[in-house]
């Protein structure tokens, strides 16, 4: 039961103002102010649908802030070929239908040159359907395996986020041991299913065994009814495969029921915002993957530069994992537009395919066959309260799996002709 949030109300105002401005300019002063008209028409416009309301709102907010930062940095340097970049953020309410409608609106009415965004594997596929049909570039910053596969492949879609396959492989490698018993609590939608499939594939390779899988509805507030059964499975690892607010709530309730005393808790992605919200006690010892952690700055100059720019823009706050996707995804697109000398779709697609970029987390590039971003995967562990003198530094980096096509499924396995 959500309604049009304040965030989705603003753009409507913007349309009116723009129309009024354009009408005014065209009607009375076309000759006098050609510059104004051209400035409007020449702006590079990028649509950004993401779930600003709902259980993933915290991560979506970070995505927007980081994407805005990427746009600001480019505009501060004079834009792309003299054209300013404008970001048009829309609330997709984490609903596939809503996302498709908003995306269509961005393309048809707002005439965006490209779309970046999404934060739900199911919703991003709905956006992908629209952008594929319209031939508009889409840089997806939400996890999905399906989007890499040949049946969902789009020539104009690029997948900046990690995918469940590479995430789970890295996390399992550093947390599962041969002979371990693993119980799964899984969000019942595309992301949860793909994460579960990934973990079970890794589990089989390592020689661990599954002692049970429980599916829960996405956005569920209460997990207490699953806890007695999870406890009775006597697992060595409780693997919680969900996201956003669901992750914080399910981890907290598992700890309330004392499951952390019996099993180690492992998650696919260890969320910075949720950990800061819930506190050190509930997350203590939890292991999970990440695309980014600000501490990478100790070894990577690009991470340092990203953190510094972010801190300057947002009152000293550090960028987060899903926030970083907004930055890296948006930056890759803007770099490609720069290389292509504008917004021509074919040229930008070619530029993205040939791009190597290092804007926050070391070198990245989009693989030719499926347009998956080849990048490093971090494995993190949440520290105990006593070990966290710096509130902003709650995680310890256990491992960094280097960027390599070896951690992806092969193009042949995805169904692409070799």
């Amino acid at each position, binding site marked *: 039961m959500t309604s049009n949030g304040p965030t989705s109300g603003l753009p409507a105002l913007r349309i009116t103002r723009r129309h009024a401005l354009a009408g005014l300019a065209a009607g009375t002063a076309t000759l006098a102010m050609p510059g104004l008209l051209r400035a409007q028409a020449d702006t590079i416009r990028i649509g950004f649908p993401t779930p600003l*309301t709902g259980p993933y709102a*915290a991560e979506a907010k970070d995505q927007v802030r980081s994407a805005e930062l990427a746009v600001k940095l480019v505009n501060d340097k004079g834009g792309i070929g003299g054209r300013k970049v404008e970001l048009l953020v829309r609330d997709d309410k984490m609903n596939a239908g809503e996302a498709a409608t908003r995306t269509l609106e961005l393309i048809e009415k707002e005439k965006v040159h490209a779309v970046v965004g999404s934060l739900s594997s199911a919703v991003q596929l709905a956006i992908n359907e629209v952008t594929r049909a319209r031939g508009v570039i889409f840089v997806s910053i939400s996890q999905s395996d399906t989007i890499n596969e040949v049946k969902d492949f789009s020539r104009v879609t690029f997948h900046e986020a990690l995918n469940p396959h590479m995430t789970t492989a890295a996390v399992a490698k550093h947390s599962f041991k041969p002979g371990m018993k693993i119980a799964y609590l899984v969000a019942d939608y595309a992301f949860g299913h793909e994460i579960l499939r990934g973990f079970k594939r890794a589990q089989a390779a390592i020689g661990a065994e599954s002692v049970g899988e429980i599916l829960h509805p996405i956005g569920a507030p209460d997990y*207490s*009814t699953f806890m*007695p*059964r999870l406890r009775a499975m006597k697992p060595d690892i409780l693997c919680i495969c969900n996201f956003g*607010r669901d992750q914080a709530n399910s981890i907290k309730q598992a700890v309330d029921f004392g499951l952390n005393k019996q099993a180690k808790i492992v998650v696919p992605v260890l969320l910075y915002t949720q950990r800061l*919200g819930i*506190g050190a006690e509930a997350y203590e010892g939890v292991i999970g993957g990440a695309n980014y952690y600000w501490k990478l700055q100790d070894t990577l100059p690009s991470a340092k530069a990203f953190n510094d720019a972010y801190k300057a823009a947002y009152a000293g706050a550090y960028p987060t994992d899903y926030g970083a996707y907004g930055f890296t995804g948006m930056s890759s697109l803007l770099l490609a537009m720069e290389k292509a000398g504008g917004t021509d779709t074919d040229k930008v697609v070619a530029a993205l395919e040939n791009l190597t970029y290092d804007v926050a987390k070391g070198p990245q590039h989009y693989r030719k066959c499926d347009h998956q971003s080849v990048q490093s995967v971090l494995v993190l562990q949440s520290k105990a309260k006593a070990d966290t003198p710096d509130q902003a530094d709650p995680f310890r980096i256990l491992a960094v799996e280097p960027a390599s096509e070896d951690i992806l499924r092969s193009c042949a396995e995805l169904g692409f002709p070799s």
Partner: protein
Amino acid sequence: MDAELIAMQLFSGVALGAILVMVALGLSIIFGMLGVVNFAHGALFMVGAYAGLYVATLTGSFWWGMLIAPLAVGAFGMLIERVLIRPLYKRSVDDPLLLTFGLGYVLVESVRIGFGNEGMPFPTPPELAGVADLGIGYFPIYRLFVVGVVAVVLVLLWLGLEKTRFGLIVRAGARDPQIMRVLGVDVAKVWLMVFGLGVGLTALGGVLAAPMRSVDPEMGALVLAEAFVVTVIGGMGSLVGAVVAGLLIGIAVSMTALFAPEMATIVMFALMALVLLIRPQGLFGKPGRA
């Protein structure tokens, strides 16, 4: 499947149902006495949780939050009744329904503007953290506390309605407001109190639920749907029905979660459909009333 697991599951169901009982009771009291279907009830549950968090943060004590938030939100409920709902009593029954429906949106958006979209954590009060050994298994102390508070509230409510003069007027007013007016009772004042009471109960439910599941602007939507299911099963307007059906739903969801977790959400709606088919007025409802 051993007996201990089933017993634990039953108990989880009771704890889950306890919160539902609080919300459904308020909904049922308001409908039973005023004939108003309060669609803002879920949003007021959420407002209760935020108010509890706000007071707890301000005073540094969960207990003040638990005490003050329901009273404050209850008073806010009285203001809503006095200013917004009372002018609609003489109009069709749909009008208060539409009004409260819209009010629910206004409350959710106001909280989003004031406190953000992303929700906030609500730490378990330290004195109630940890797990207790029930003999059949381990159970969070806080959830035991919630069951206890709800039990106390139910007893107080029962005493208030059955043993006090105010309770007598309320019960009589629900039967026949016309006669009450003739007898010189200010029915408007009674309804004001009843609306405030109903809202206060759901706000208390919100405060109690918050440390288990944190607070967010959407937390009321699901609860409202569940509370409606409870009142339909228990019988619209029946307080005993709200209590019995609330616990029944909690247990049904919990037991389904044990055997077929994917069906846990749908089971309550299936149960509602079944009750509507066999006994349309609900388990404890009087025929002819909604």
